[in-house]
């Protein structure tokens, strides 16, 4: 095992023994996780050689030798697609996608096998820090013995998620790994990152995954993330969220930003959010979602069940009672899901519903909503306006998270 700390600053010689400079960086082929170029720096500037041109590579003897006829190419380093270990990975924050947390890279372990140098893991613990600090200060052999005695904390390269994915390929890799994570873990990671890194990570995710992760984050973090994103991107992500959550986040943004994001959203989604934004945040109107399933009083049991099977599952997750509305959109009652399933398909749905829907109005304060949930053991509650028209639903989930975040 070789460490990046031992490789950096090693002198590089050509085949005649003339000194060319010192190792400045290692360029990586990120799909294979293999070092493919060596960047060296001398007073004249930076150059690079392909890894195949390296004849001897021995940190123990503190030298790198090039093969005969190896040619140096000028190195600008400005290439966006390039991944360089010292420049892009060392000292940076990365995501440990297995341990699901953000860590800082102290050193990088590589393995030299059959003439190629393979990336093994990034080191995040004390051992890596000590190796970095004392590299070039005490003898390499002593340093190895010292560092090996300390606690080793490494993350295998396959589980490293780059926070600022420069190249498209890394972006893809990061995306695949992050999309597999639980949204709550992803939210914790977002909370740990800086402003730019958050924007990069959210940009690497598809809007749906980003929306799920954002839903799980603290309210202050949600607003900060949306503030850091590009307007178009923020709009895409917010469209994927339930309108009530999107409204809560947008409500914390400054007015100008709020309008810009709303303008960039699809007209239909933006309209729903606008309506919700008009309600006080601690009232039923501010808490409810306007995106939900309801039955019509004219439907039969069979029609209702058929519709239930067709709609998006998100719209019915917490609903153990389905609200029923007349053609004038007025709430006429709720039908328990269990009763609906057991009822004969041809009968009208209104026969099986309970007329007292226990609904609240949009202006009902949060305290009363909690009491109602507790009193009737509800999982979902219908919300109507002052004329009795069905406006939205409040899930137990919305109530719980407000209760938890409330203090």
């Amino acid at each position, binding site marked *: 095992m070789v460490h990046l700390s031992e490789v950096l600053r090693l002198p590089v010689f050509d085949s005649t023994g003339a000194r060319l400079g010192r190792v400045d960086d290692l360029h990586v082929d990120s799909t294979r996780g293999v070092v493919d170029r060596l960047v060296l720096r001398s007073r004249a500037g930076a150059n690079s050689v392909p890894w195949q041109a390296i004849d001897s590579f021995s940190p123990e003897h503190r030298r790198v030798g090039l093969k005969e006829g190896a040619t140096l190419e000028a190195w600008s380093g400005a290439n966006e697609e390039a991944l360089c270990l010292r420049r892009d990975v060392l*000292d940076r924050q990365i995501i440990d996608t297995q341990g699901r947390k953000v860590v800082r890279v*102290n050193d990088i372990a590589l393995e030299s096998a059959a003439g190629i140098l393979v990336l093994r893991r990034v080191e995040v613990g004390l051992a890596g*820090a000590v190796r970095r600090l004392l590299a070039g200060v005490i003898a390499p052999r002593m340093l190895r013995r010292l560092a090996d005695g300390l606690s080793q904390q490494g993350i295998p390269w396959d589980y490293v998620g780059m926070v600022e994915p420069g190249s498209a390929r890394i972006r893809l890799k990061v995306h695949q790994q992050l999309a597999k994570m639980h949204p709550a873990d992803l939210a914790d990671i977002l909370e740990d990152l*800086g402003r730019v890194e*958050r924007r990069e990570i959210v940009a690497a995710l598809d809007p749906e995954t980003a929306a799920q992760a954002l839903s799980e984050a603290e309210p202050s973090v949600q607003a900060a993330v949306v503030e850091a994103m590009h307007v178009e991107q923020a709009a895409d992500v917010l469209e994927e969220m339930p309108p009530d959550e999107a409204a809560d986040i947008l409500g914390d*943004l*400054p007015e100008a930003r709020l309008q810009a994001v709303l303008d960039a959203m699809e007209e239909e989604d933006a309209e729903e959010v606008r309506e919700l934004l008009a309600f006080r945040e601690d009232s039923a109107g501010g808490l409810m979602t306007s995106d939900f399933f309801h039955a019509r009083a004219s439907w039969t049991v069979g029609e209702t069940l058929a519709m239930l099977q067709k709609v998006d599952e998100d719209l019915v997750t917490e609903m153990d009672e389905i609200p029923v509305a007349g053609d004038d959109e007025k709430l006429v009652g709720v039908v328990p899901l269990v009763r609906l399933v057991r009822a004969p398909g041809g009968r009208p749905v209104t026969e099986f519903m309970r007329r007292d829907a226990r609904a609240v109005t949009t202006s009902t304060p949060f305290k009363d909503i909690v009491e109602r949930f507790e009193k009737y053991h509800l999982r979902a509650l219908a919300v109507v306006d002052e004329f009795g028209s069905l406006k939205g639903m409040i899930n137990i989930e919305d109530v719980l998270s407000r209760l938890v975040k409330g203090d």
Partner: protein
Amino acid sequence: MLRQRVAGLAARLGMVFAVFGPGMITSNVDNDAGGIYTYSVCGARYGYTLLWVLLPVTVALIVVQEMCSRMGTVTGKGLADLIREEFGLRITFLLMMLLLVTNLGNAAADFAGLASALEVMGISRFVSVPVGAAFIWWLIVFGTYKSAEKIFLTICLVYFAYPVSAFLAHPDWAEAVRGTVTPVLPTDLPGLAMVVGIVGTTIAPWMQFYLQSSVVEKEVQIADYRSTMWFDVILGSVVAVLVAFFIVVACAATLHKAGITEIASGADAARALEPLAGRAAKALFAFGLAVASLFAACILPLSTAYSVCEGLGLEAGVNKRFGEASEFYWLYTAIIVISAAMILMPGVPLLKIILVSQVANGLLLPVILVFMALLIRRRELMGEFVNGPVYDGITWGTTIVLVGLAIAMAAFSVMPGAAPAP
């Protein structure tokens, strides 16, 4: 019934502290044992003559704290994090070691403050310091620091007794104004050290790390930054320096006037509150100082351990379990144990420790300022929020003046026959 009343009171207190931003809290912690004693000694020893130092210090304090909150807001990262990313591990490590040593002194100063406060009340330091240290350790590791913070902040308002006392002491206001507007630099080592100490205690390096982390944790948005944070920083800085001003004036009008130019113990320093509190001055002083010391002694080891771990890429945070962040907890514990032990060594002069630690702050400050100035000019980090010429001028100006003072101190201390440091 009673429970409801208590809850109501707590809610109202909560309202008051809701407007306390990171800037206000940081400035409040600023008036810890180091601050109180440094300002007291300044007033007792030099009367009104060094009051002028507070004017440039106010400007520098505002600028430095604003820079920290701006960096925290724009990058979403702590100061140690940024230094690590931009300057590498080795420089960060050296800087963190300097910070650690200086902060050990500061933590010791806070335990010294606690010891001296309770000695006024006749409680031995061999009781107060171990009990205080154990309490702090428990509070952070097992307790609920957040609720304790509000109690601390409330009791710190005791320091508003100083302005009242200063007025009641009938100071020579003409003399005070003259001292505030005529800069006269002392030309001996203790005098120069006093100036550096005043700067170091008011703009303590550790507080910049603490402030920036608080801003990051608070998730301040850039849009809010310009309106509220700016105000918070200015108000906090001005209040901190005003309290300092009145401590100096109160001490000058009582101690210095009575010919007491050396403060040997908390009992001496407490005399500055006699015009207000009479016989209760000692109790008032002791109570306020003890709480302020405990408060700072809570935050300081925590902030230090946090900065060091952050800079070195080690897991940190009180919400992590011991096994997850063992280095953090060991470091935190070691800082408390070592600094408390320093105070318990036989024959340790409490006040000297306090003053020397504040001078050390003043010597570390220019180093931190250089890093801050270099970071905040990077457009790739700060975007449009890089420093303007006025800010740059003030930052570099402060740095150069402090380096000049440090060189002058070094020159005086090697000169034959120079007086020992304070």
